[in-house]
């Protein structure tokens, strides 16, 4: 069974004074050796983190500016390359046209020269053929006439024949 107990509210001066003295001492010791260290550590960490956040923010802003600059340069480069491609295409077209025209002119000239050479060859061949035919005809005519045809007659007859052929051809 519970029995009557001592008075828990009984006041004792010695623990009272001890409490004040011990608390004052421990508070003083803590105020000198503990709380400043903790406060300093917390403040330094706080400053470090705030500094890091500020640095990260500055780096983000700088990176953003760089990105904008890069995008602008990229845009300019794309534009410039488009212009260059357009100019290159135009140049290629112009060069192609020029080469084609040059080739056509050359071909035309070559064709013309070939035609002239053919015409010259034909004329030479015709002249040779006519000369040979006249010689042959005179030879045949001489045999038929049974007389000698001297060179001066032969030359005259050839020239007459050629003149006749020329007049006919014309």
């Amino acid at each position, binding site marked *: *069974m*519970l*029995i009557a*107990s*001592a*008075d*828990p*509210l*009984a*006041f*004792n*001066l*010695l*623990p*009272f*004074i*001890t*409490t*004040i003295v*011990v*608390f*004052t*001492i*421990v*508070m003083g*010791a*803590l*105020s000198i*050796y*503990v*709380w400043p*260290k*903790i*406060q*300093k*550590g*917390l403040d*330094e*960490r*706080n400053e*470090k*983190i*705030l500094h890091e*956040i500020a640095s990260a923010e500055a780096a983000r802003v700088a990176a953003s500016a760089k990105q904008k600059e890069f995008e602008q340069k990229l845009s300019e480069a794309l534009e410039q390359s488009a212009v260059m491609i357009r100019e290159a295409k135009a140049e290629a077209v112009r060069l192609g046209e020029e080469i084609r025209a040059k080739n056509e002119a050359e071909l035309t000239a070559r064709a013309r020269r070939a035609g002239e050479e053919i015409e010259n060859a034909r004329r030479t061949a015709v002249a040779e053929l006519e000369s040979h035919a006249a010689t042959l005809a005179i030879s045949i005519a001489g045999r038929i006439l049974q007389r000698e045809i001297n060179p001066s007659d032969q030359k005259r007859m050839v020239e007459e024949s050629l003149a006749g052929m020329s007049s006919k051809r014309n």
Partner: protein
Amino acid sequence: MSVLSSSMILASGDDPVAHIVDKAIFDSPVMLSMVTLMVCAGVVFYLLLRAARSISTGPESMGNKRYIPTGSFASVVEVIIVYLRDEMLVPVMGKRLTKRYLSFLLSMFFFILALNIVGLVPFVDIQDAIYGLMGKKFDLKEHQTAAVFGGAATASISVTGGLALVAFIVIQAQGFRELGIKGWLEHLCGGHELVHGSIFLWLVIPIIFVVEFFGLFVKPAALAIRLFANMVAGHTLLITVTMFGAMAMKAGLGTLAVGAITLVSGIGAILITFLEVFVALLQAFIFMFLTAVFISLMSHEEEAGQEDPHGSQPQATHATH
């Protein structure tokens, strides 16, 4: 812890309050609470010094790791300090007063917390049991103990009264420092506006003066009694519950019944111990917080709580706002 306490108490008698009251060590004038106070002061200083070393910034050779506290105890201490400072004290006292009284208030909080927690551990019962096992018997008078350490120091009105007196001195010192003698007297008479106000209002000044004057002493007294009463009540409840087994045995119940009652009371004691740990923390906080409130009341009215409406400077470590 509570089961151990229970078995100790079974052998120690059947008066729960006698188990709580402060006792003299043998026949010396030294009370158990005095030794406990000194030991707790040493332990608090040692543990907080270790925590401070861990929390403080390390050498540069550690790189960024020098900013990180090592050890879970230091982290817990840091969380408590930062929470109390930024969430409790700065909103009430403002930054300037918080900076001025932070050391005092934190010292008070951790000191009372240590005393409360030590009071939950049955050091006295353990020492009594050791003496019993060793076969040592002492001729002790009432309110004497053979134990040299332990007990709930904050369950003594002498101890809580001492702490309250320190709080009273600091509160009044703040009043004189901030308000001056004239301002302090005006504060006791209801404040500057009332004293310099209408002559008809002067009629209430004597009443206010009496109330405020007694309030000067009632406030710290309330601090002392609140802490003392909570600790006494908690420990009495805890010890009473653990004594159920002994009471059943004395009542002559059977072994089975005594065993069952002891088991249930043991479980109950464990649960109450958890509650008491919370109460220990809460009461340390309340003592510290109300002291901070009373200090802030003794400063210029426009300062307290209005210095920073959000309560704190930007805290990167604990961005709780």
